[in-house]
């Protein structure tokens, strides 16, 4: 066998017994990395939307005291604005046209950039949502032990110990949040980013 034999064997391979689907809906999608990310986004968007709606009913569900309504609503408005910002960013990505028709190097750079950008967006989204949820949970806690908490806040308690416990809990939760986000992203997306990096490396000039 030589390369000419190969070329002639290659030309003779017609693949004529394969059927091409007539409609895009008939295709059983194998899913490329970016399609998988987009699919996850769709599910996450629905879950987030349900969460935003459910949180709006927290004052009614937990019968929040009138004094706690104002801080809760202020936090909720900021929470919704943050969610809208991230939803918009995710939507722009979701609707982005694919880069499949570019030359191979550019197409790979685009896919790699998109994967990395989305990993960072997810991380940022987690970090941004946490303070709102933390404050909302604190308000629910204050509401459930309202008299005790009121007495506690009005008493002559040491502010420094409060800040110490508050600071410590925030730091610990943020560390846990960071590592779980990194683990989750690594498990789902990093493998794609790494494989594309390897392919890009093999395209470098020699």
């Amino acid at each position: 066998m030589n390369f000419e034999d190969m070329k002639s064997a290659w030309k003779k391979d017609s693949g004529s017994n394969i059927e091409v689907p007539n409609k895009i809906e008939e295709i059983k999608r194998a899913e490329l990395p970016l399609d998988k990310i987009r699919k996850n986004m769709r599910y996450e968007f629905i879950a987030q939307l349900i969460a935003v709606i459910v949180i709006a009913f927290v004052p009614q569900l937990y019968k929040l005291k009138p004094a706690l309504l104002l801080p809760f609503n202020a936090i909720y408005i900021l929470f919704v604005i943050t969610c809208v910002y991230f939803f918009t960013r995710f939507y722009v990505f979701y609707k982005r046209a694919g880069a499949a028709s570019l030359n191979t190097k550019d197409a790979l750079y685009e896919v790699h950039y998109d994967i990395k950008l989305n990993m960072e967006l997810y991380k940022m989204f987690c970090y941004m949502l946490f303070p709102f949820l933390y404050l909302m949970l604190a308000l629910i806690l204050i509401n459930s032990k309202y008299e005790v908490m009121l007495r506690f806040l009005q008493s002559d308690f040491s502010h420094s110990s409060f800040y110490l416990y508050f600071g410590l809990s925030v730091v610990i939760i943020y560390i846990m949040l960071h590592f779980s986000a990194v683990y989750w992203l690594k498990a789902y997306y990093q493998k794609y980013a790494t494989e594309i990096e390897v392919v890009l490396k093999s395209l470098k000039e020699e």
Partner: protein
Amino acid sequence: MEAHKGIIHKISRMYVDDEDDQKDLFQEIICQLWKSYGSFNHQSKFSSWMYRVALNTAIVYFKKHKRKEDTYAIIAQEIEMPSEDAETKELQLAHFYKALQQLDKIEKALMFYYLENYSHKEIGENMGISEGNARVKLNRAKNKLKELIKKQGYEF
């Protein structure tokens, strides 16, 4: 699309060894071609545009099914030189694909363009690399392929 299905089948067969994965990749390429059709500039050749989309899809495709163990070794042992010409061609092709599947993703794309008689300049343009780089990488891929075919017990 019907006229070009053969070439899509060849790319699928080059990039993945498992038959189910080949079917999945074939369908994925068709889907990407449909989705990307808006980007087709009618001044260029349809086949060139299609090759790009198909190869870019195959490169970022990650196979789902586990690779079958050592099919190369089994094939190499079972092969006896057939007398019939058609059978010889069929076997050559089987060897050829088995060897192609062992190349890396970029080498496969380079070999594809070579088999489709693209010049080094055209290969460079489609891959986004220089003509010289395309030549160096293609020669390396061809040498690697030769060695792989020899390892399968076939004369080259």
